[in-house]
């Protein structure tokens, strides 16, 4: 269970550059739910993820993961609870390390690291099995530098890395946005497979309304740092992209109307 209670994040607080990114956002995600998140630029999608990973400090409110108040925890401490796949395929892995070393690093995510060999024979065999399931032929390239892989391959490995260790929530930050359509589809299918097979709690940010409705069981729309739409079940099944667009436009219109009321 993930709970974000009345969370506000303001960047450059107390300066003329002050920007509120989240304004009292409330969100509860039950265990095992796959949630998709949409919203325009600056809606607060990335900030929401950063609040969960501990990369952004909250100015108000609380963050609970699995009943634990983690609001003040720095990112490395939350690594045992939170796994993340970045938008940039280069950000989620170390180009200078080999594929197996990247996997070894992820396999010890959030645990105490000792002085035993990071990659031993048993680990290597396990990594080979995991990689084989990706169907990219990477199981024969364990010793290759990560930097030699294509963006799609790196993103697939990043996804695998995120799921090597148990976590309370998997965060997917537009993780297919930088890929070509075919590769993006492959990575998305892989995502669905992994999330469903392992029954993961996941939050996927996307720019595509199609993806937002096609994947997962619940869709959120963020606007100006708040959740403005939260649909699941039959309501969601009855929605199509045009409906979502209409809702989106209406939401923007309403906020505009609110603003004009305030200003008028």
């Amino acid at each position, binding site marked *: 269970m993930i709970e974000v209670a009345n969370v506000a994040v303001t960047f450059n607080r107390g300066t003329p550059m002050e920007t509120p990114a989240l304004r009292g956002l409330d969100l509860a995600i039950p265990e095992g739910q796959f949630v998709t998140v949409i919203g325009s630029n600056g809606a607060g999608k990335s900030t929401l993820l950063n609040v969960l990973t501990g990369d952004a400090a909250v100015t108000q409110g609380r963050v609970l993961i699995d009943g634990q108040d983690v609001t003040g925890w720095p990112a*490395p401490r939350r690594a045992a609870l939170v796994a993340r796949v970045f938008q940039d395929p280069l950000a*989620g892995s*170390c180009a200078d390390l080999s594929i197996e070393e990247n996997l070894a690093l992820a396999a*010890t*995510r959030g645990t105490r690291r000792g002085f035993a*060999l*990071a990659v031993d024979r048993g680990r290597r065999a396990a990594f080979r099995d995991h990689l084989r399931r990706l169907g990219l032929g990477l199981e024969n390239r364990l010793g290759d530098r990560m930097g030699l892989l294509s963006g799609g391959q790196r993103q697939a490995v990043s996804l695998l890395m995120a799921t090597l260790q148990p976590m309370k929530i998997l965060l997917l930050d537009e993780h297919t946005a930088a890929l070509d359509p075919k590769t993006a589809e492959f990575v998305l299918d892989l995502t669905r497979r992994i999330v469903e097979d392992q029954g993961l709690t996941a939050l996927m940010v996307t720019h595509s309304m199609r993806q937002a409705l096609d994947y997962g069981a619940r869709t959120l729309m963020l606007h100006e740092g708040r959740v403005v739409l939260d649909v699941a079940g039959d309501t969601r099944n009855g929605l199509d992209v045009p409906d979502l667009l209409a809702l989106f436009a209406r939401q923007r219109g309403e906020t505009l109307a609110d603003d004009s009321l305030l200003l008028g």
Partner: protein
Amino acid sequence: MSLVAFLGAIEIGLVFGLVALGVFLSFRVLNFPDLTVDGSFPLGAAVAATLIVHGVDPYAATAVAIAAGALAGLLTAFLNLRFGILHLLASILTMIALYSINLRIMGRPNVALIGSDTVLSPFQGLGLPNLTLKPLFAGVVLLVVGLLLTRFLLSATGLAMRATGSNPRMARAQGVDTQAATYVGMAISNALVALAGALFAQMNGFADVTIGTGTIVVGLAAVILGEAIFRARALTVWILGCIAGSVIYRLAVALALNASFLGLNASDLNLVTAVLVAVALILPGARNPLRAMIAGRKRP
């Protein structure tokens, strides 16, 4: 080149192999350009020499020198991590501070160790002449340190350190405390350099406040030469390259300075160093069929 000059070059190359490993750790593993070494090398020499002159056991003195080097590295890391001072600048601050600190430690610009016991003393009765004993001793120390460092960097903790230098954001997402990794890495790096300084002082019979000048250039030269010779970036080969680079650098310098037809003398050392490093940096990128044939593969 005479045998004495040859063995001398090997000896100094092996001692500076420790510096190369330290520089490799900061520059290559942690991605932290660290000039502290110009201060931590003479620091190791000063601490070891002063303690030995005061009757401390040479091995204990060397251990204290190593600890002093680690502290210097921690200071640089602290200035950078705690106060956000640019790493290069933080290391320069530590370096110039160490110049004064080294003078304080020694109480004078240099300390002679003639007639004092050194780490070599227990082995001097074994019948080997000093000329071969010194490079042998330095070689054994370097081998042990090199193996330990390689093993450490292959461990889960070492892997976390390498990730810290390669992609800190990713490392943090994997639960790596990147600050702690940087502190530990910088401490080890400068401890190795201080060990080199302590050995240098004991093998040459003196510590001088000026011996640190250019340590960083020599260390980098070794790392870069090693990278130019061994193209592979597998960790073990890379570390081996640093060691080989250090020895080859000294041999090349000795050759250049000893070749009478070149007309170079000792004061041309820095020029020779600069040319060597430049050549090592230029060569790997140059289209060279011979190179490609030897290497047998393309650069990624």
